[in-house]
Structure formats: C-alpha cells, structure tokens
C-alpha cells in the first residue's frame, strides 16, 4: 500500500497547540463544573476561560456562546429555536442536509443557486420568516453574499451557518443565531459553537424545565482544546488564507487546461483553501483511488462514492457535473511539493481513466 503523504481531505489532525493541551485538559478538567468541590471549581474556571477565549475570537459576547455536541445538533437549535407559529423557513439549495431535514418539518422556501454557486435572492418575505444562510459552502467553498440576501428577504430572524467558513470569512453584521464548527479552526471534530446573538428571538426547541441559558454539557477537555486551537489559528488565518489562495490558483490553472474539467465556483468568491472540480467521463471512485495510489487523499461528491449512491445535491443545484468529482482542502501545513504532486497525479489519473 502506498503511504499517503499529502492530506487534502476536509478532516485534518488537531492544531498542534490543541493537541498539546488536550492531555493536560483531561488531567485537570475532569470534574463536573456545576458542583461545589475544589476540582469542580477548577473545572468551572477552565470552562469560563475557554468560553471567554472563544467569544473573544468570534467577537461576540461570552453570554451568547453555547457549545453543542455534536455540531449537527446546532442546526436544529439555531434554526428551530427562531421559529414562531407563523414562520416559514427560507434556505438555500446548497445548504447542508441538516437544514433540509429541518425544512422538511416546516413550511419552507428554497433559494435556487446560480452556476457560480451564489444563491439568487428571494422577494421580500414576512418579517417572522426564518432565513438560514450558509456563509460558505462545505463542498465548493463558494461564499454567499449574505448581506444582499438578508436585505432582499427582509427577514428579521436569521441563522448563519459558519461551520465551513469559521473565522476565515467575516460574519454578516445582522444575524440572530450562528453556528461554528471547531473543526474549521483545527479544533476537535463535532464541537459546535452556537451563538445566540439575539436571545429575545430564540427559545430552546428541545424539551426543557429550565428556560434559562441552555447548557448542553460538552466535554470540557474538548472545549479547552477547541479554544486553544481557535486562539492560535486566529493568529495564523491570514497567512493560511494567503498561502492557500496561491496554491488554489495554481491547481485551478492546471485543471482548467484539462479537457472537460468543470470547476465549481470562481476562486475570488470562494474560500481560499477549498476547490471542487469534476472531470467529464471519469468515475469519481476510480479517480479517488488512482490519486490515493499516488499518495494523496482527497474527498469526492460523486454519487459512486456516496453511501446512498445519490449525487451531490450541491453540485446538482449549481448545475456542475456531479460525476468524476474531487474535493481538495488545502491545509496550513500543505507544501508546494504536495500541491505539485497532487496536481500531476490528478492530471495523470484523469487521462488514464479516460482511455
């Protein structure tokens, strides 16, 4: 088996600083922060420090932060919690499946996507409608023009999905709730950070006895690791974006020379570290394996790589080719040699599979 030397999947190892803190956090942050013991007081202090650190990095008040586990629970809390009896959910055709699942249980309207991945703004809706917007797409990296869409719908109840964009893209000014994913800043997976910016518009949609600030008991060591990863990535994000944009441009330039390559969304309106490209007449699974054999791991949105054999709803909504698809994530530690190697492997593999 070929040793994988280049990781271009969306998952990545923890931020090194978060990894360092994790062991110590399990040692000192094991107690229940809600109890009265000395250990609990220490755990409580660690938790408060972590929440303050996260709030500061996200530029929101510490009282508005609600850690959730798993991240997908944050979609339900953040969207359903904004609903009034008369609300309709307005959301994008390229949203995550979690949003579609909530829409299926409520009156809803879907904003369609243009070929470049940008949602087409809707006509003005009732003020009590709930608008769920993705800041950047998890498959293509396409960044939405949130302010324009918010202005067009005139909805006052706005959920922002920042799980992919994290701190790489500024959050729109006007929102009610927002969801971040610790993974986006190289923290532990499945730690979500729900921000309740306008608590008066939100009510806990889960069965509860205490209507006060919700607490979902996220693992304290994981929360501490997430806070440390965020604190450190915040100092690196600008450099990471600049480097990724350069590499992304190189990959796009090379792939655009390949016959019948379909790149999803332009770089100037996409996350700098993400790229989705489909090659006509190529089998996505075979392409993935061929690249893997050269030592590079990538993701794919092709139907043949999905458990349910369904094509990517994101690519389908954009009108981009769904087969022969690979998704590339450029990480802060990605090297120029890895980019060159991946590029050569993809071009060689596509050519080989088409023969």
């Amino acid at each position: 088996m070929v040793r994988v030397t280049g990781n271009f999947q969306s998952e990545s190892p923890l931020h090194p600083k978060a990894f360092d803190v994790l062991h110590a956090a399990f040692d000192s942050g094991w107690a229940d922060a809600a109890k009265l013991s000395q250990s609990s007081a220490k755990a409580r202090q660690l938790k408060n420090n972590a929440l303050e650190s996260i709030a500061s990095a996200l530029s929101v008040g510490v009282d508005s932060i609600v850690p959730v586990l798993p991240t997908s629970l944050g979609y339900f809390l953040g969207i359903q919690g904004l609903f009034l009896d008369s609300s309709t959910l307005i959301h994008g055709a390229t949203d995550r499946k979690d949003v579609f699942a909530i829409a299926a249980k409520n009156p809803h309207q879907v904003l369609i996507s243009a070929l470049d991945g940008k949602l087409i703004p809707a006509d003005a809706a009732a003020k009590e409608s709930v608008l769920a917007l993705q800041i950047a797409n998890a498959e293509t990296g396409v960044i939405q023009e949130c302010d324009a869409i918010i202005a067009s719908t005139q909805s006052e109840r706005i959920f922002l999905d920042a799980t992919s964009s994290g701190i790489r893209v500024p959050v729109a000014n006007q929102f009610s709730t927002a969801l971040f994913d610790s993974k986006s800043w190289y923290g532990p997976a499945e730690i979500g950070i729900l921000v309740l910016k306008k608590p008066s518009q939100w009510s806990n949609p889960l069965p509860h006895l205490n209507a006060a600030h919700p607490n979902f008991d996220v693992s304290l060591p994981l929360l501490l690791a997430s806070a440390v990863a965020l604190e450190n990535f915040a100092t690196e994000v600008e450099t990471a974006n600049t480097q990724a944009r350069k590499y992304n441009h190189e990959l796009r330039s090379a792939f655009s020379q390949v016959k019948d390559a379909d790149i999803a969304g332009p770089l100037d309106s996409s996350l700098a570290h993400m790229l989705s490209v489909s090659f006509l007449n190529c089998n996505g699974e075979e392409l993935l394996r061929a690249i893997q054999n050269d030592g590079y791991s990538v993701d794919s949105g092709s139907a043949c790589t999905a458990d349910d054999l369904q094509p990517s709803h994101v690519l389908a909504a954009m009108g981009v080719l769904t087969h022969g698809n690979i998704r590339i994530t450029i990480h802060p530690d990605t090297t120029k040699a890895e980019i060159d190697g991946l590029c050569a492997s993809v071009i060689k593999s596509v050519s080989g599979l088409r023969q």
Partner: protein
Amino acid sequence: MKEIDARGLRCPQPIIELGKEVSFMHAGDQVMLHSDDPATEPDLVAWSRMTGNVFDKKSKDSFVITKLSER
C-alpha cells in the same frame, strides 16, 4: 431516433455511452437516452452546458438529446 438503454448502469456510464453516440451524430440529430441513475439528469444539465448540446426530459427515466455542436 436511435435509443441508448443505459438503465441499470451507474454514473458516469450513461453519460459516457451518450458521449460515444453523440460523437457519431451530426448537428440536428437526436438520440433518446434511457437511464434510471439519479445522477444522469443533473449531469445532463452540466454535459449540455459543457458540450453545447441540449436535452429534453420526456419521462422520469427518458431524455431526448439534440446535437447542436459539432465538437
């Protein structure tokens, strides 16, 4: 009109079979593609844009493709 029966084939095979047939056609010629693969319809949208041809959905699993471009 020639017909391609790609039912039971999974992506990208229906589009590959279509591409082979279209390469022998002339501008204005049509072909009927039968495919029950869920990726075929979205891929026909992209394929039409990329190749300059058009398609018309006739039923859940049947599409008429008209060659417009000589590429």
